[in-house]
């Protein structure tokens, strides 16, 4: 893993944000956080671009699905892998996110910080 790989974490739940941030930092990632969709989109569009984005779906100001749609609709950000973190285990929510170009979909009730870090690591290393 590149020691300077950048992860943008967009999550309004303070506990999950802090837990994910601590876990990823521990593994050497450079983590930036946002606590709503608008701030997340603004940071995602700022350079240097993140190598991976972790994105919640249900957030204040701008829903995660709209953030994803905006990112995938712009040449500068369309290739950044986005992993969805969601409370919803509904198949249609997952399908919508994957069809928009998400690289993965995690249901929070089954989330493992270790697995998430491994997945981020794999996405960073992908050529």
């Amino acid at each position, binding site marked *: 893993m590149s020691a300077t790989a950048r992860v943008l974490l967009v999550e309004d*739940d303070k*506990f*999950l944000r802090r837990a994910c941030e601590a*876990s990823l930092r*521990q593994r050497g990632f450079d983590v930036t956080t946002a606590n709503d969709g608008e701030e997340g989109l603004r940071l995602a569009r700022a350079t240097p671009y993140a190598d991976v984005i972790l994105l919640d779906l249900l957030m204040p100001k701008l829903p995660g699905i709209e953030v994803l749609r905006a990112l995938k609709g712009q040449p500068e950000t369309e290739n950044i892998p986005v992993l969805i973190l969601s*409370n919803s285990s509904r198949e249609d929510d997952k399908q919508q996110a994957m069809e928009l170009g998400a690289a993965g979909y995690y249901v929070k*009730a*089954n989330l493992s*910080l*270790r697995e998430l870090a491994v997945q981020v690591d794999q996405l960073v290393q992908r050529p």
Partner: protein
Amino acid sequence: MNPIDLNRLQDFSDGTESGLRDLAALLATHVEECLVAIRGGVAGQDSEMIRVEAHRGAGTFGACGAGPLSALLTEIETLAGAQRVEEASALLPALEREVTRVREFLAGRFDSQDIAATKVEQ
């Protein structure tokens, strides 16, 4: 029944003992913050605030293995979503007891002064 399924908490964690300990301390703080937020919603008769905080807590604490707490918050979320604030308020004492149980369980398991010190003043 234990207030926390430690296997699930371990699965949620990054797999290290120090990571698990940090997570436990963070969780103990967060359950208190959730309780304070819901108390605020009840005091202000703000059903939407109660619903949002209960929804968020139910998801997060369920993911960490706090099943009974998550179930209680889901019940509160449902009542608040139906504008039944008085009935949601009636569950506040049960919520306070469950938060105390979670905090004491974590403090006992991890023997941490940090966790014991997380109680937020009312």
